[in-house]
C-alpha cells in the first residue's frame, strides 16, 4: 500500500533537509533523538539569515499551546519543522493544520513510533499507549481491550481503536 493512499503516516525517519523557501521558521522537537536534527535545522536557518523560533521538549501540552499561539500570529511564508516521536509530531501537526498550515509548509522527521494515541470509538476517550498498529491496548476510559487499527485521523492525531473481542464468546481465543 503506497503512502499516498493510507491514512497511516509514512513520514521521513531521517533528516529530510531544510525547506529553504520560507521567509521565517519555527522549529519544534521532542525527545533526545530529535535534538541533533533540530539543532542542525536551527543553525541552517540562522545561516540563511531568516527569523526562527525554536523549542525543544518540555511539557507537551504547554508546547502545543504555545505552538497554537505562534500559528495564530504567523504570516504566510512561515515554515514549521517538526521532529520527534510520531505521537508528538502527529499532535503538533494537527495543531498547525487546524490553524491553517498546509502540508507544503510543514517538514517532519519521526524518530520513533513506539507510542500511539488511540481513540476509543466506543467511549470517545483517547489513550496514549506504547502499542503497535494491529496490537491490543486497554482503553483508559471504558476499560475495553482495543485493537489499534491501521487507520489514523491526522485531525485528531489518533489511531482508531475498536473492541477486539466483540465477535468472540467467552473462552474463545481472539
Amino acid at each position, binding site marked *: 500500500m503506497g503512502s499516498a493512499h493510507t491514512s497511516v503516516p509514512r513520514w521521513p525517519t531521517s533528516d529530510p533537509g531544510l525547506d529553504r*523557501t*520560507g*521567509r*521565517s521558521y519555527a522549529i519544534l522537537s521532542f525527545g533526545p533523538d530529535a535534538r541533533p536534527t533540530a539543532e542542525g535545522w536551527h543553525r541552517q536557518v540562522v545561516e540563511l539569515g531568516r527569523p526562527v523560533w525554536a523549542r525543544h521538549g518540555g511539557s507537551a501540552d504547554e508546547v502545543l499551546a504555545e505552538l497554537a499561539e505562534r*500559528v495564530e500570529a*504567523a*504570516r*504566510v*511564508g*512561515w*515554515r514549521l519543522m517538526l521532529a520527534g516521536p510520531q505521537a508528538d509530531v502527529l499532535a503538533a501537526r494537527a495543531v498547525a493544520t487546524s*490553524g*491553517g*498550515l*498546509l*502540508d*507544503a*509548509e510543514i517538514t517532519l522527521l519521526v524518530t520513533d513510533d513506539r507510542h500511539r494515541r488511540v481513540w476509543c470509538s466506543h467511549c470517545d476517550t483517547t489513550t496514549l499507549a506504547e502499542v503497535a498498529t494491529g496490537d491490543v491496548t486497554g482503553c483508559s476510559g471504558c476499560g475495553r481491550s482495543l485493537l489499534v487499527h491501521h487507520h489514523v485521523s491526522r485531525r485528531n492525531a489518533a489511531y482508531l481503536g475498536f473492541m477486539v473481542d466483540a465477535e468472540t464468546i467467552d473462552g474463545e481465543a481472539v
Partner: protein
Amino acid sequence: MTTLALVVGHSEEIAPGIRELSFSRTDGGVLPAHPAGSHVVVDCGEGRRNAYSLTNPGADPREYRIAVLHKSDGAGGSGHMHSLRVGDTVTVSRPRSAFAPVSTARRHLLVAGGIGITPMLAHARDAVRWGRDVDLIYVHRPGSEAFSDELAALLGDRLAETTDEDEFGRLLDKALTGQPIGTHLYVCGPGPLLDRVLADAAAAGWPPERLHLERFVPAALDPGREFVARLARSGRDVRVPSGRSLLDALHEAGVAVPNMCRQGVCGECKVPVLAGTPLHRDEFLADDERGAAVMCCVSRSKTETLEIDL
C-alpha cells in the same frame, strides 16, 4: 458537452472597450448553479469558442453575466461578442469550475489586472455573502475601471484600486508579507501580471499550494494532428482527422469500442497498442501501462500510424 441556447438580456459598454452581456433562458427559468470563479464557453461565430468568467452570483442564477474586452483588431471572437444585442441568441456551455475559492482559507487575497477583474467580482460577492475575510487589489488602465463602484460598495476599504504600476508594486509587496498563515491568493489578469505576482509571492515564501491562477481550460481537448489507426486483426486503416476522437473515428468505421465517461477516466475504452507511440491524454492508465494501451476517447498518436489490437 451539453450546451444551453440562451438569449442576450443585457448588452452595455461599461468601460471603454469593455462590454457587459447577460444571457438568460427564453422562459426566464433558473440556470445551472455554479461556484464563484466559474466560466462558460460561448460560441463566438466562425467556429470560435471562448471561455468567459461569470460575474453573477452562482446560486440559482436566472442570468449569466460576463464582460468582454474588445481586442483592437476584433480578433479571437471579441468583435462578435461586442456586436451582440438584446434578443440575440447565443450558445453557451454549462458552467465549469476551475477557479473556485478554497473553503478553508482564513483570508482570500484577490489580485486582478484589467479585465481579469471578472472572476474576482464573483469571488468578492461570495466571500461577502458567507462572511469570509477578503481583500482585493485591482490594477487597471486609467478610465477603464470596470465594476469599480460595485466593488467599492461590496468591499469598502478591503478594496485597493490603482492605475499606477509603482503603487501596485507597493500594494502587492505589503500584501504578500502581511497575510495570516491560512491566506490563499487568487490572481487573474494579463500574463506579465500573473508572472510578476507568482514570482513575488514565491520570493515572499508563499508555497504554490496557496497560489491560484485563473487559467481558462479549453472547452475541449486540443483537436490534435491527423493520424491513421491500423486495425491489426482486419488489416484496415482508419483515418482519424484532427478534431475527431479515435473512439468516434472507429465508431464511424463500424468498429464498436465499449465506452462510458468519454473523458479518459473510467477505463472502459482501453485498446491495446501493438505499434506506434500513443499521445496519452487520459487520467486512467498508470505509467507502466502507457506503452501498451491507449484510451481511445481522448488520446491520439504521436506517430503517423498507431497499430491497435482490434
